[in-house]
């Protein structure tokens, strides 16, 4: 911190010295008065808060609540010269007028035209400075407050979902307080262990050092999205995955002298959208006439549930072929039988007693509310916005308390002198999140094994609720309700953001700006098992267990910028040079222990000394860089932009500390050409091209030689790499923007992104002692086509209708990989389903593939094709010559073997009717690790529309993914104990019924296989809002003049999902480990995304 403070002090003193040195130029003596009004050209309504200023002198003011402005120009500046009076107002086209500046009153009135297509929205991200969207030579998307306020997103990053083409937002886990993952124009990195794969986030000038979940989305003024290196080079080695800049409200658009108070409340309910299918039938001997004790053995004797026997359809041996072990499992014991029970038993029997829908028992609608109080004010030299926010979100799982969050924000802008401004932003948030264990072993996992005939709420023998082992005869798994109730996982986050920017513009030609930002996150996490916690098998947590971690992350950034604007005739030039530095520090400590001495005390002092274990770590990242950018604009038609940046970072290897990035862009606005003869119809036509480079940085430890310290021993871990470079992304994008009659805007962009020097763990020869080394090992190439169409169909004073359609399509391929191909993604237990291989799609899934066609039989079984048939599941199964796949029951074929003599003369034995592995090479030892799916969608679509009639507004947003596959482990693992709904055979004919073993074959010992690759296509009604605003006129009779507006509304989020996907939600993926949910479309017991319907009331004073 000391060095940083020193650095900042140098910056500040430097800036102040400059101010003092040159401040003499600011001393004014007398004034010329400019006065007038600003109105809407179409309606004639006054526009309060419009900005009117003299461009050359940077002097001006905002209009008051009646739309009037007035300001003085000091006499020393009044020389009878020609100056440009510029008028700006959000949502309207800027207008200028050349006037002669002379003493006395100068009166001008302006009528502004609405900027329907948003072409004059000012974009600041990735650009040299505030730039009109129409003049951008690359793509920067902008989501404005108006796009967000219909159905305010719960997190900042999800506010851009369905609103920007080429951006994939996946909320892999719906647990309250979890961030969504964002990927722009395909993946940039293969392996993101220990680092973020998402874009760089900037909030009110604060370059975030941690995630975005603490940033509430309610005060957002706008979000700018830069999708790749072609636009993001300005941000150097952190920007290859894109940049998202969030700006919150500052009160700057209020009329001068006005204070506005806004009180917004939303209250609603959360519900599960889709259920997964669990088994409701059984396959045992059963006496339906005695639902109180229905289980009988082969002798017809009533037995306890755990001792029940499979009701095998046909047998060749004695009737006691199955014997049940007391308290346990059914065991085949008849040595004369030729088929095992699993082959001749079918889950086709109904229960007679009471049944439970265990999904309903587990999920429980929760509630959601937010209260936000915002106070904004603007005076002549100061504007501010202060906001308090309270939020509660309890998710959808029974007794899950979920998230409680409070935050406070203060944004202030102050003008000390003409041309000398200070902006400050401060944000603090604190949250307490009750978390649920996800993935295998957690309650969502346990739920998929629960039988429908057992009451999960019945007590244990000692009276403690939620019987721990509900199904001892069938499943090894524990009651999910028990874990939810008796295992507490709590995360407390405290987040503080602060930034200050001082800008001094002594002249229009030159300004300097100093910025400093600070981001701090402190987290406390506790995972606590009560003393006496029950498990099916003995476990260390039975005696109680505590895990506590504490971590902190501080990020500090500072910059000093000089800007130079100069016009030469019709050529206007803008140039900027910036120096910036970054310092980030993290610390982490945790401790754990078991065997609580005293029940109910969850401290580390309460665990036994022998089991106590602690770890700690810290990191520090330093970076600095500088860039020079220049932008040329000739007559507003020909635009060019050049950038070069040097970046130094402590994260790079010692021999690769400094890297250079560049960007070159150009745009040609054809519609501004004098010869453009379509201007009545096509009033905007821009061609643009940009090439840029940007990087992504390695994780902290990657460059170092790391020896592990564990168990009191030291051993080699990772070999260091002094030459480790950032991943280097070069993106070219070209596209066009077409505006038609100020009503329709079409933007089309094609992007090619090549990211070389992929940072990944390369395996080393073991005798060196180091298993791995982080190296730059490959290249990923993505190609993206994205298009958006915005149509403003009706634009009346009382009525308007607009719609937006977004489309994007990406391919991504590993074009170079200098390490052996490897399995990737979730770990082996959860099926490492993704395969990294040269010339393969990044996102390709590999595993066992079930034969579907005789064409794919192994060469040595091709001659047996007549003995195979394709069954009703589409699988090619061996049935023997002369048989049909329908003969299983009729001809008692289930459980028998088909012996096929291959062309090699060898007889091969295959189970009748069971799916068989496809392989490359000869049966049975060929390679059966084959391509089974692709997580990358064919394309994505989004559609939103807004209809307004007087005070009434209706808005809806659909988004859709077409194609793209998901690996459904939640379904696969449920096959282990045959508890998935697929295993039920009721309603099927004897010809189509499948025995238990058929599904066990498909389960395949939980090995990744094609049966569980599912189409992820979906259409979602993502957001819906219906609101009515009562304006001052409506309210005056009741409240008098002090209530400005009251808005009531109904908001729906994630309302409906249309999909064939069988999991809870096709929006699922794994976000931990080596990648993120946008790539790893893997469904492995994640908290499902849920529906939220709420009512809102907003009062503005």
């Amino acid at each position, binding site marked *: 911190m000391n060095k940083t403070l020193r650095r900042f002090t140098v910056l500040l003193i430097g800036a102040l010295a400059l101010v003092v040195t040159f401040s003499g130029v600011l001393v004014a003596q007398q004034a010329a008065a400019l006065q007038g009004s600003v109105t809407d050209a179409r309606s004639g309504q006054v526009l309060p808060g419009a900005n009117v200023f003299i461009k050359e002198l940077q002097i001006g003011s905002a209009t008051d609540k009646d739309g009037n402005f007035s300001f003085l120009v000091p006499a020393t500046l009044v020389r009878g010269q020609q100056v440009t009076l510029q008028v700006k107002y959000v949502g309207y086209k800027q207008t200028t007028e050349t006037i002669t500046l002379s003493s006395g009153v100068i009166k001008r009135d302006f009528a502004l035209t609405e900027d329907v297509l948003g072409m004059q929205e000012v974009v600041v991200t990735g650009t040299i400075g505030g730039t009109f969207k129409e003049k951008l030579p690359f793509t920067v998307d902008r989501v404005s407050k108006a796009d967000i306020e219909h159905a305010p997103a719960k997190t900042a990053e999800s506010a851009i979902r369905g609103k920007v083409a080429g951006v994939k937002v996946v909320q892999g886990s719906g647990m309250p307080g979890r961030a969504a993952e964002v990927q722009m124009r395909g993946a940039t990195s293969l392996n993101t262990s220990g680092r973020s794969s998402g874009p760089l986030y900037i909030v009110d000038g604060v370059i975030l050092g941690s995630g975005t979940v603490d940033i509430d989305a309610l005060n957002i003024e706008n979000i700018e999205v830069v999708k790749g290196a072609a636009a993001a080079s300005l941000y150097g080695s952190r920007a290859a995955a894109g940049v998202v800049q969030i700006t919150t409200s500052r009160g700057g658009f209020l009329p001068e002298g006005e204070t506005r108070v806004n009180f917004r409340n939303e209250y609603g309910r959360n519900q599960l959208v889709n259920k997964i299918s669990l088994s409701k039938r059984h396959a045992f001997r059963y006496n339906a006439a005695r639902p109180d004790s229905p289980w009988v053995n082969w002798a017809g004797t009533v037995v306890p549930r755990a001792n029940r026997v499979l009701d095998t359809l046909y047998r060749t041996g004695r009737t006691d072929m199955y014997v049940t072990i007391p308290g*346990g499992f059914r065991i085949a014991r008849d040595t004369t*039988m030729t088929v*095992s029970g699993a082959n001749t038993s079918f889950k086709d029997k109904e229960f007679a007693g009471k049944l439970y829908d265990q999904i309903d028992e587990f999920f429980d609608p929760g509630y959601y509310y937010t209260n936000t109080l915002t106070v904004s004010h603007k005076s002549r030299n100061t504007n501010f916005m202060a906001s308090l926010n309270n939020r509660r979100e309890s998710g959808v799982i029974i007794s899950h308390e979920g998230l409680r969050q409070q935050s406070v924000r203060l944004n202030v802008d102050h003008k000390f002198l003409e041309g000398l401004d200070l902006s400050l932003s401060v944000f603090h948030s604190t949250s307490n999140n009750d978390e649920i264990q996800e993935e295998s072993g957690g309650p969502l996992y346990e739920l998929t094994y629960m039988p429908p005939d057992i009451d999960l709420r019945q007590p244990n023998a000692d009276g403690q609720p939620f019987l721990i082992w509900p199904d001892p005869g069938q499943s090894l798994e524990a009651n999910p309700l028990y874990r939810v109730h008796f295992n507490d996982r709590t995360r407390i986050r405290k987040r503080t953001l602060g930034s200050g920017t001082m800008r001094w513009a002594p002249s229009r030609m030159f300004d300097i700006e100093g910025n400093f930002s600070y981001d701090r996150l402190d987290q406390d996490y506790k995972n606590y098992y009560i003393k006496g916690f029950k498990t099916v098998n003995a476990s260390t947590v039975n005696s109680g267990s505590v895990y506590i971690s504490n971590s902190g992350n501080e990020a500090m950034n500072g910059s000093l910028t000089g800007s130079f604007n100069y016009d030469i005739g019709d050529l206007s030039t803008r140039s900027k040079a910036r*120096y910036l530095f970054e310092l980030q520090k993290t610390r982490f400590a945790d401790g754990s222990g078991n065997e609580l001495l005293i029940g109910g005390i969850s401290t580390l002092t309460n665990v036994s000394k022998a089991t106590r274990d602690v770890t700690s770590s*810290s990191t520090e990242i330093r970076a600095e860089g500088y860039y020079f950018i220049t932008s040329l604009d000739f007559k507003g038609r020909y635009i060019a932009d050049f950038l070069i940046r040097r970046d130094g970072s402590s994260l790079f290897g010692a021999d690769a500390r400094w890297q250079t990035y560049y960007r070159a862009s150009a745009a040609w606005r054809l519609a501004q050409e004098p010869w453009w003869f379509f201007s009545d119809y096509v009033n905007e036509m821009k061609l643009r091209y940009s090439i840029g480079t940007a990087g992504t940085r390695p994780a902290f430890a990657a460059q170092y030689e790391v020896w592990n310290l564990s168990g009191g021993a030291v051993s*080699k871990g990772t070999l260091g790499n002094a030459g480790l470079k950032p991943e280097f992304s070069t993106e070219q994008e070209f596209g066009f923007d077409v505006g038609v009659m100020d009503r329709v805007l079409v933007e089309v962009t094609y992007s090619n992104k090549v990211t070389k020097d992929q940072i990944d763990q390369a395996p080393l020869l073991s*005798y060196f002692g180091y298993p791995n080394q982080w190296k730059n090992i490959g290249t990923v190439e993505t190609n993206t086509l994205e298009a958006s169409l915005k149509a403003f169909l009706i634009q009346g004073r009382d009525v308007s209708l607009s719609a937006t359609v977004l489309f994007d399509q990406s391919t991504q391929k590993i074009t170079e990989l200098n390490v052996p191909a490897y399995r990737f993604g979730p770990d082996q237990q959860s099926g490492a389903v993704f395969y990294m291989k040269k010339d393969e799609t990044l996102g390709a899934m590999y595993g066992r593939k079930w034969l579907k066609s005789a064409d794919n039989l192994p060469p040595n079984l091709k001659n047996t094709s007549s003995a195979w048939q394709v069954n009703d599941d589409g699988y090619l199964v061996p049935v023997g010559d002369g048989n049909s796949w329908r003969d299983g029951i009729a001809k008692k074929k289930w459980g028998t073997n088909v012996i096929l003599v291959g062309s090699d003369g060898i007889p091969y034995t295959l189970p009748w009717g069971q799916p068989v592995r496809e392989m490359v090479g000869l049966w049975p030892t060929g390679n059966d690790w084959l391509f089974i799916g692709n997580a990358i969608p064919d394309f994505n679509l989004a559609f939103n529309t807004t209809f307004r009639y007087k005070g009434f507004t209706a808005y809806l947003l659909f988004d859709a993914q077409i194609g793209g596959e998901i690996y459904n482990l939640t379904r696969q693992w449920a096959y282990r104990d045959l508890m998935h709904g697929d295993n039920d055979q009721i309603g099927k004919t004897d010809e189509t019924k499948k025995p238990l073993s058929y599904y066990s074959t498909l389960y395949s010992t939980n090995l990744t296989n094609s049966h569980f690759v599912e189409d992820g296509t979906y259409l979602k009604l993502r957001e819906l809002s219906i609101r009515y605003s009562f304006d001052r006129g409506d309210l005056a009779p009741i409240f008098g003049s002090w209530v400005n507006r009251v808005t009531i509304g109904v908001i729906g989020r994630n309302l409906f999902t249309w999909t064939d996907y069988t999991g809870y939600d096709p929006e699922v993926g794994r976000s931990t480990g080596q990648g993120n949910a946008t790539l790893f479309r893997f469904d492995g017991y994640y908290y499902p995304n849920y529906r939220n319907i709420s009512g809102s009331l907003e009062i503005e004073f």
Partner: protein
Amino acid sequence: MNYSRIMALGSLVLLLMVALSGCMDLAVENPNNPNRTTAVTEPKDVESLIGGSFLTFWQATQLDDPAMTLQTMADVSTSSWGNFGMQDLSSEPRMPFINATYYVYDALNRLPWQRLYRAVSSANDGLVAIKGGMKIMDGTKDNTRRAQAFAKFVQGLCHAYAACFFDKSLIIDETIDLTTYQAVWKTPAEVMAAAIKMLDDAEALANQGAFADPLPGAWINGVSNLTNTEFVRVIRSYRARFRASVARTVAERQAVDWTKVIADAQNGITVAEWGPQGDGNFWWDALKFRGQNTTWMRGDYYTIAIADTAGGLTSWLNTPVNQRTWFVIKGPDRRITGSGAGTSSGTYYTYVTSSPFRDDRGTYHHSLYLHRRFVYHTAGATGLMSTITLAEMDLLRAEGLWYQNKTANRQAVVDFINKYRVTNGKMAPLTTAASDADIWKWLMYEKLIETAHTGSGTTWFDQRGWGRLVKGTTIHFPVPARELEILGLPMYTMGGEGQPGGAPKSVKDLIVPVSSVQPY
């Protein structure tokens, strides 16, 4: 503001930026982990490096990969869970091991390989530092020789295990310059010879006289105050085990230098059980933690029912494999069952009323007997992790004596068997009147029952050398696919019926029927 003034101002700002840039020190140390410089520069750190290498050896051998799988391949335990390749490698008919980087259970041969050579690397680094003249002092006490001996010990253990486990491997000692080294593949016999030499060196160093301080308890967790003479006993015990274990076939087993094995076993550990203490975190033992957990593993009838007197095993073996299932053992061995119907627990195995495995994966995996001898390790992975037992040493001696001279050594062999059979099993003593076949059978049985869930792979090594592995069982593992890929060498694999590296005979042929003349 005029143009020149702006230019001056701009220049000043640019100057300030230039002054600022490059002045940040971008060289940041990693405060969390040591590196080569920190680990092999200071004598104390070198000592820690050497001391820590045994943990790496432990983790190379005693964790899930390969300990769990080898025990099921030996049919001493059974499990049909897919984890660690147990189902793939212990189901019948036996299939080849899939030696491919994409194989889900590729850790089975990859982790042992990586960790063994990592432990070797640590030992070698320490030895190189000492060779370079480094003295490891504690005040005035010189502990250099102690460190050197321990490094040679771990170097020897790792090479010995590699020789037993892989079909070929590498000899990497401290004399090799890795910067120029090209992989030279050695046969198991060659690697074992090198390993024996390393262990000999360790012994010689230890035998030079008392260590200034005994071995620290952190090196072999919880084994504290190991003097040079006690350390030599541990070296000899391991050497005895591995010398016998490297054999792949019955002929190779018989050709082992049993005189040396006997000598080492005789002068090996004197305590009944030796091993590190579990800490529930880094030091744990898969065969005791998971292998005794009711959901994971069961005793395999192939082995635990040998003493069955009710014909259960015979009947089981006479049943086609895919129709076999559990049965209740009725026999005199009180380690397997309590007295009576066979449904009560013995001292090493507990009778359980259920089998966690699924019928469709083969009912022959079902068993009602769960190992529990080291049950204290199952909950928190703590307590003594018995790795070498006196029984193992005694029975190695018995085996050697048997091979050397069945007549002259008959009494000694029977005495060794009875030492465990009678004391632990509460079975009637065997007499010299028993047939050769019976004595041999009961010798094998005692060794399997007494060493089950102790040293990783021990029962597999023994079954391999006795020709008792089920036909087609992988008898040794190929070099891991990942290593071959990096070296650019062709893939190959081992195991499967009639395939290279597949065990030649069926165990059924080798089970000797229970003799009616012998007392039980």
